């Protein structure tokens, strides 16, 4: 059964006020298109989970969609800060923002425990760090097989996880390559999953390379076809990270007024991703295409009858 839907319908049906939402993707494959649609639909009181909140959560926080952030690294890598989030944390402007903070490994462990239906995930981190004091959900536990102590983090089970990928079939069987982040763990941990892809492919394409299937359609609720839906993040092999925008955001986000003006122009003022791409302009889009191709070799799975 086809699960293909428009972004508008997918977000309207799958994302509800008050949900815990994870739009994952480590630098790569971040669904800005879904984040912007959540802003346009004025969802409220969301708890946003992501290792690196990145520009997408800065924009969603600036738009007033969120009351809480669960994260492990809060910045604009190589550039600076996330100022809409910082305004809410440092001066409760325009309202406080609750933080629940881990390390990267802790966040990965949380999704893993959530996906595997475990009560906690154990890891060798947090020793002699102040993080367990700042977040009492990070707790020491004793090994049942000896006297070793490790730290535990609780499972994270988002109500909704959104994953951007290179391709999926209409049922949501999803293939991706390049940096995988913890997209798989976040999807399996979630109650509902939206897949956003650059390209909708036939089931036969998926079945021809099953090792590349990261998320099975079994756990997917909606498939949205949205080329360039990850911009200004990137899609390996399709388009580059728009570092110019990441640098520009530093100036835009430092001031609440320019941040809102940006949201008006680039989110509220347009109907969806197709219009966004048109607005970016052919020249900018063309400049983000990879400078060359680097195809993988193909492997032979063989047939067995």
């Amino acid at each position, binding site marked *: 059964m086809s699960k293909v839907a428009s972004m508008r319908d997918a977000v309207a049906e799958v994302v509800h006020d008050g949900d815990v939402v994870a739009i994952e993707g*480590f*630098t790569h494959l971040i669904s800005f298109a879904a984040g912007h649609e959540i802003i346009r639909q004025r969802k409220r009181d969301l708890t946003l989970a992501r290792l690196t909140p990145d520009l997408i959560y800065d924009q969603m926080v600036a738009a007033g969609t969120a009351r809480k952030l669960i994260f492990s*690294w809060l910045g604009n890598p*190589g550039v600076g800060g996330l100022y809409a989030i*910082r305004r809410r944390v440092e001066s409760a402007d325009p309202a406080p923002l609750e933080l629940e903070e881990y*390390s990267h*490994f802790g966040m990965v462990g949380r999704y893993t425990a959530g996906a595997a239906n475990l009560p906690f995930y154990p890891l060798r981190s947090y020793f002699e760090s*102040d993080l367990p004091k700042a977040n009492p959900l990070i707790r020491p536990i004793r090994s049942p097989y000896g006297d070793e102590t490790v730290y535990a983090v609780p499972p994270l089970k988002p109500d909704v996880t959104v994953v951007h990928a290179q391709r999926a079939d209409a049922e949501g069987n999803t293939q991706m390559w*390049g940096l995988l982040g913890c997209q798989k763990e976040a999807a399996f941990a979630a109650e509902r999953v939206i897949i956003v892809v650059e390209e909708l492919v036939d089931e036969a394409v998926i079945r021809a390379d099953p090792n590349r299937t990261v998320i099975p359609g079994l756990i997917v609720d909606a498939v949205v076809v949205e080329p360039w839906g990850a911009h200004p993040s990137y899609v390996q092999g399709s388009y580059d990270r728009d570092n110019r925008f990441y640098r520009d955001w530093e100036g835009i986000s430092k001031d609440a007024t320019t941040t809102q003006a940006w949201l008006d122009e680039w989110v509220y003022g347009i109907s969806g991703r197709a219009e966004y791409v048109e607005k970016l302009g052919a020249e900018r889009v063309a400049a983000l295409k990879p400078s060359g191709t680097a195809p993988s070799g193909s492997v032979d799975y063989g047939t067995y009858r």
Partner: protein
Amino acid sequence: MSEQRPVGQPAASGSAAPASAFTKSEMMIVAAARELAGQRVCFVGVGLPNIAVNLARLTVAPTLELVYESGAFGSKPPRLPLSIGDPSIVTGATAIVPMFELFSFYLQGGLVDVGFLGAAQIDRFGNINSTVIGDYEHPKTRLPGSGGACEIAINARQVFVIMRQSKRSFVDKIDFRTSPGNLGGAEAAARIRREQGWLGSGPSVVVTDLGIYHFDDAGEMRLDSIHPGATLDQVRETIGWDPKVAEPLAVTRPPTAEEMRLIREELDPEGAYTK
């Protein structure tokens, strides 16, 4: 086919650039890169570590395997990535793995020789703050937080730190301990590491824009080399405690022409890291 620039050759120990020909940041990056000579596997942090490690790969450590927390092992980026999740660390890498595997099998499994970190604040024992300035609940400045730094500091065999010196960053007491260093001193730190089964032995090098520090038997930072053009007065004015200074104090070898060419022409032509 992909259009990749050829990977640079190890720099000959050739001619030194005149002192006026390099900035303090460039000296810092070069000094940090040289510290990686002989290392095998390095976990690369965001920011300054990224350029230092990539310079090392092109000069003193051609066999260095770069590990990025985003899930890349054995990267050979033909351009210097702004972020540590850049597509250029993927194409041509040895392996791309889920972050779960990277942190569980590579880092916690004990395969990482050097964790290379930056920081907002550091104390004399190499404890690192990258979380907040001020009180945690009501911070004056909210910093990015741990990322992978906390588990890198505990599980990498040793930790290198690169950061610019200032009274605000080199402090007597850090506001928040994000990543543990030598805690309150070497003896207690060694005991705790043993008891808790840490894989790492903690910080071993801190490279700044003024000099190179290693850690003495007490687990405290000691200035072993001062960069050309820097003075001991400058060092003391930009550090929140009375620093130990090696006798005799070495002077860091200035960047070679080849190191400068790699930074300015290949790694950072826009000066994003060196300004």
